[in-house]
Each structure stands twice: as C-alpha cells, then as structure tokens.
C-alpha cells in the first residue's frame, strides 16, 4: 500500500502531474509582468486552470505519426522519456524520512538518470524522419555531451566534501559552512543545468527561429504531452537535485520540512526564468567553446578547491 501511494501519489505520478501544471502556470504568470503582459487571466483564480485545460486539450487531440517513421521508436520514446525523468524523484530525500529508495548510491542514480534523458530526446529526433527534428536531435546530443561533463563534476563536489554518495547523509551534514564551500560548485551546477534543460541562453536544440521546434517538430497530441511532461519532470529532478546537493534540502530556518525544499526549488525556477526573460540565445559554436574552454576547466578547478577545503575545514576526513 505504501509503495502504491509512493508510486502514484507522492512523489510519484500525481505529484509530477501537479508539479507540471503548477510550474507551467507559474512560468507563464512570472514571465508575463517581465514582458509587460497579463498572462493567463480568465480560467480559474489568476488563470490557474489554464494549464490544466491546455494539457487536457493536448491529451484529447489526435496524435499524428508521420509517414516513413518507425512507429514503435516514434511513440515509445516519449513514454520512456517520461519514465526516466520521473525516476530520480524516488531517490530524492523529500523529507527526513522520504527517499523512497534508501541507498547509499543516491547521487549516482540521480546523475545517471538525468544523464540518460538527452539520449532519449536525441532518439525522438532521430526517429522523426524530419530534417529539423534530426538537426535538433544532433544538437541535443552535442549540448548534452559538452554540458554533462561540467554538470557531473559539479554534482560530485558535495560527495567529495562529505565523503558519501548517500543523498540523505549529504543533506544531514550540510551546514552554512558547507554551503559557502560548495557555492562555486553550485554556480557551475546551475550554469550546466541551464544547458542540460535547454534553457536560455542555451536553448539551442529547440531554437524555433532556426530549426522550428527541434526534436519536438513532428510530435502532437498525447506524444507531445508526454514529452512536455518529461521536460517538466526533468526540471523537478534537476532542481531537487540542486537543492539536495547544495542548498541543504529540506532543512529550514525554524523547522525542517518539505515546504523549504519546495521554496528553494521555486527560487531556482525564478532565477532561471529571469535569465530567460533577459538573455538571447547563443550559437552552437559559442556554446561549445564556452563549455570546453571555460566551464569544464573551472569545474576541475572546483574539484581541487573542494579537496583543499576538505583538508582545511574538515580535517581531511
């Protein structure tokens, strides 16, 4: 029974759905004043039903499979993408008692599951039999390879500092001191996160002015809904990962709990949206040179800094 609740309600399916609907609405409503617009307005309080209606509309629309594609590859990939994106939720310590899967390799599971996602998206582009989708798929892959190196190195820094891959222990041991030590690692993680989640200025794989909608181009109806769900579940996994690894997870000021984790995740979302509203996209070449010339070397330096800090502040244990 408990497993069922965890799989379907929290932190499983229903939670992911609610998160998607809520975050989608929050993105829209937050972007609107930056654009000097109103945003969703008519449906529900402050337009909050709008996303719900949009998603249910997508579910009822015809899901078109184009000619000349492998229908299994084409329709399987969105489903696999959703499942892969939702799995990390099982390893995140949402509260003191709730990582669903208790393991001492939580961090490894997290970064591996986040790392698989781009390859699935590449396969959606590859399987669409469309030049734009294919270019989008190639771009996803290029970007993932360049950004994941920095992402993994940054995500490893708390593990190195605390000497464990157990996410619960990492949260428990975190303090203001460890936060400061991990700050450069957090910044690197955040930049790599923008690249991994295809957010501006790294929204190169679905640059609509260049390659229409990248790997999404041929998708419609339910399949498109699933891909969008995967994207937002991925947001959740990566944000929660950032909070758990660097910002002390569920730890709060007066009491501990899920509320603080949620607020911290929203804060990351707000920063991401603000960057989105103020920064144009860069080109693939600029992204590559940025990643390999600056981001990866600095991540390596950061690892060195963590080792040094461990000896200085934690006595090398």
């Amino acid at each position, binding site marked *: 029974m408990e497993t069922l609740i965890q799989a379907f309600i929290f932190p499983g399916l229903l939670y992911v759905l609610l998160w998607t609907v809520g975050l989608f609405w929050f993105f829209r409503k937050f972007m609107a004043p*930056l*654009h*000097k*617009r109103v945003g969703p307005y008519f449906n529900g309080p402050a337009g909050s039903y709008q996303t719900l209606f949009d998603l249910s509309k997508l579910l009822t629309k015809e899901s078109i499979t184009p000619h000349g594609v492998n229908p299994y590859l084409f329709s399987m990939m969105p489903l696999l993408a959703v499942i892969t994106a939702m799995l990390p939720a099982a390893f995140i310590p949402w509260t003191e008692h709730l990582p669903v899967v208790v393991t001492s390799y939580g961090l490894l599971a997290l970064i591996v599951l986040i790392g698989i996602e781009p390859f699935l998206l590449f396969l959606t582009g590859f399987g669409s039999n469309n*030049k*734009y989708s294919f*270019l989008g798929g*190639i771009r996803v892959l290029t970007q993932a390879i360049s950004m994941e190196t920095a992402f993994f190195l940054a995500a490893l820094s708390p593990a190195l500092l605390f000497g464990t891959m157990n996410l619960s222990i990492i949260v428990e041991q975190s303090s203001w001191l460890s936060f400061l030590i991990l700050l450069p690692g957090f910044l690197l993680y955040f930049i790599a996160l923008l690249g991994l989640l295809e957010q*501006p*200025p790294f*929204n*190169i794989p679905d*640059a*609509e*002015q*260049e*390659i*229409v*909608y990248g790997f999404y181009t041929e998708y419609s109806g339910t399949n498109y809904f699933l891909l969008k769900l995967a994207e937002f579940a991925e947001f959740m996994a990566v944000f929660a990962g950032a909070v758990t690894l660097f910002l002390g997870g569920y730890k709060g000021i007066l009491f501990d709990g899920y509320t603080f984790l949620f607020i911290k995740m929203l804060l990351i979302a707000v920063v991401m949206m603000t960057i989105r*509203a*103020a*920064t*144009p*996209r*860069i*080109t*693939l*070449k*600029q992204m590559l040179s940025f990643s390999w010339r600056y981001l990866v070397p600095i991540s390596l330096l950061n690892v060195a800094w963590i080792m040094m800090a461990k000896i200085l502040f934690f006595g090398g244990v």
Partner: protein
Amino acid sequence: MEKIKTLLEQFETEYVEDYKKIWIKTKLSSSNDLLAVAAALKKEGLRSLSTVSPTDFPEREVMELNYFFEDLRTKRNLWLKCDIPRALEQCEIESLTPLFPSASWHEREAYSMFGVRFLNHPDLRPIIVSEDFVGKTPFRKDFDWEKHEKDVTNNIQMIVDAFKNEQANNEINLDSESSETVLNWGPTHPASGPIRLRIHTDGEDVISVDPDIGYVWRALEYLVTKKDFVGAIVAVERLCFMDNINSMVGYSMAVEEIAGTKITPFAKWMRVLLGETARMSSHFMGLGGFFNNLGLHTLFMWNMDIREYFLDFLESYSGARIATAAIEPGGVRYGLDMTMLDELQKALNKFDNGIDDIYTIFVKNPTMKMRSYDVGILSTEEVEIYGLSGIVARGSGVETDIRIDEPYAAYDEVDMKYITQKDGSAYDRFVMLFEELKQSVKIIKQAKKRIEDGVASGEFNPTKDHMVKVPKKLPKGEAISRVEWARGEVLMHLVTEEKAKSPYRLKLRAPSFNHTMMLDHLLKGQTLSDIPLVFCSLYFCQGYLDR
C-alpha cells in the same frame, strides 16, 4: 551633372533633359547602345542600378524599358529609356547584370512579368510568379486574367505538382557521396514569414541560400491600373502595413506631379507627422523582431507596449490603426482636430519614459553583441554595387537618405542629419533602427510644434487646408517619385495616358528586393544559427518583396 550630359552626347539620344533637381532624363535612340552607355555611366560613378521598369505599349508595338541609375555619393541620378520590339520573339535586350549586380532580380522580374529576355543574364529564372504563370507574361496589357482565373483547379495542381516534384528530387540531384542536404527555411516557419529559403547545408554549415519569393504576390502593380487615382491608394498602402503612410506619400507625389497640383504647407507637414509615426511603428517591430530571432521576446513585447500609443494617434486621425488610407493625391485625407495631437503627446511621453530602459537592457546587451557584431557584414562598396538603401546602407556608413537628398513633403524645413554606423554588421543595423527611432521622435516633435504654431498664428486652417482638389482625369504624362520608406528607398514610376482615369502603369521599386538578393552572399559559410539573425537584420518586408 554636366559630365553625365557630355557623356551622353557621345551616343545617339532622342532627348536629354533635366528632371527635378537631381535627375537627368534621356532616351536612347537605339537599344544596342545600352551596354556601352551603362559601362560609361558606371565609370562616371553611377554605380547603383535602382530598378528596371518595362512599360508595355501594344498600339505602338513597343516595350519601353526604364532604367534608373543612381550615384549614392554625389546624388546624381539618371533616368534612361529605350525602346525594344514588343513581339515575344524579338523582345530581348542585353543584360546589365554583369555590370550592375543589383539588376539581377529586377531583370528576372521584368522577364517573368513582361517576357523581356535579357541576353547574357547569368541566372534568368522566373521570379515571384507561381508555376502557373511561368512563361505567360501576366503584366502585358493583352494578358487575359479572366481566362487564367477560370482554370483555377489546374493552376493549383500545377503549383502542387511542381513543389512535390522539387521536394522528391532535392537530395537525388545532389552528390550522393556528400552529406549535403536541402533545407526549406519557410514559407511556414516560425521566423521566415511568407518567403522560402532553399538552404543547402552540410550539417550546421550553410553552403548556399536560394530565396524563393512570391508567396504573397498580389499583382498590386496590375491592380492599381483597375482603380481610379484615389482608389489606388488602398492597393499602394497594402505593399506593407508596417509603414503604409510613406508608400502612399510616394504614390500621391507622382500623381500630383502629373496633375500639376501644389499641395498646401499644412498637408506637407501632416505628411511628415504621419509618415514619421508610421516609420516608428515599423522600426518598433524591426527592433523587437531582431531580438525575437535570437529567441528573446521581451523587447518585442516592450516595444508593442509603446507602439500601441502611436497607433492610437493614427487611429484617432484616420479611424484605423494599421491600414490607415490617410494620404491621398492632393494632400491628406482628413482635417486635423487639434485634440488629436494630445494623443500624440501621450505617445511621445510614453516613448521618452521607456526608451532609456530599452537602451540599457537591450541595445547594450552583451550576448546580442557577441552574436551579431561579426555576422552579415556589408561593405560600403557592396552597398553601392548592390543598390542597397535605408538602414542597411546607412549601417555600412553610406550617407543616403531621400529625406535629405531629395526632400519631399516638408522635409526641406526639418532639421535632421544623416545617421550612420561604421561597420555594416547585423549589430550596426540594429543600432541604426534604435537611433532612427530617436530621430523620428525629434522630427515628430518639430512637425507637431510647427503645426501648432501655424494653427495658433492663423497660418494653417486645420479643417480646410488638408486637401487641394486633384482633377479626376489626368493628362498624358510620366513621373517618378522617391520616398525614404522605413525599410529603404522606394521609387515609384507612374505612367498615365490621355484623359486617364486610372494609372496606365505603376512600377513600385521595392528596397527589400535588393536586400533579399544579398542573403546568399552574406550567409555562405555561416552556420544555421546565423540565418534568422542576418535575415531579420536586413529588415525586409515580405509584402513589399512580392507586391
């Protein structure tokens, strides 16, 4: 000017006469001299060929070709005519494209519309017209439009078949060993608008670009000949909605010249006022569109916010926000209620409040600079030989602006200077748009003050002075008019017959035409990411491209 005249003396001409202040009008006795004359003109410094405009005279069995040569440096212009036989088999003339690259597409247009064959043209394919019009010369006076329209199912089938055939053979025609493919960028693409670029790419690298235009071809040049002189303005303004006022001003000036009407100073100032408002409405879209193509929509939204106030003014004056139909031969269409200027003041205040933010956040944006300072670079040389104009020419440092070179309306009394940038990159063209917005506001303020002073002193009567009657029937004549349209120089060539009720021929020279020609040159060797950036920095309008 004298130099050009002495130069023309070497050739047999029917007449050489001064026309307006900075034009010479001449007609060659024999079309065989054309190439020699053009070569001599190029040597003399008239290096831009503005357009080629054929006029069809079935009674005289003659196709009259009009060439408009311009010198952007010294502002000397030449209007050269010559006759060639009209019959399709003999309707041919030497191409000027090898001498003047800017002629290329204009000659292709004359070939598609009038069936004039240009010998030695490097790439004489039909342009603008869809497959069902190929080889049918739709703008000749004897073309049977009704018969063509009756066969509509077949026509559409032809277009569909041709497109499917092209798509099926795209990759077959290429080298099967290479990784080159053909990418359709448009006509239904988030950033293209109704134009298609056939892009040959190798992965992300662009090998060549071949623009395919004509998706919004409305045959406006033919349409105006079916309307009376006032009714034609609705066709003329539909060239491009973004700045419709200035295209109507150009047309009205040509009609007034043939009719011999002088419009009142009040109407002239109104044309300046409305024209600059429309220019701003276009530039706001251009600025926002530039950032849109970099994937950032914020500036576009902010601009729309300010632009709405300027459209409010247009609405209070003409009743319409976009398609205003506010300029007519003889002046401006409506009288001015002085309270309308309050709307304008509101817009100006809104602009003054918002423009600094736009400058700090967007014009100085480092990411945008990083992307655009080294792409789409046009040299001064290229601007001249390709006949570019407007912000594209001024972005490369060429001082050309019809408002100053050949002042129309009340621009001779307006205090304004050339605004230029140095490097001619996409970034410079973006800054040009921004600087011109500020310039337009300055001009609007001058015009507003002048009108208010004029009304206060009793010099202008805002309810009566706006219009001078232009006769319904015009004498036989011919005129050209040039205006500085938001996106470049517009040249209109109007021909009328005796006791004409409607134009006999109206040639609309689109600046966007020349700018689109540059795409292949600018994008070769760049990557896919640069396409939208260069595309929108050239600031063209698909409506004006196709007409």
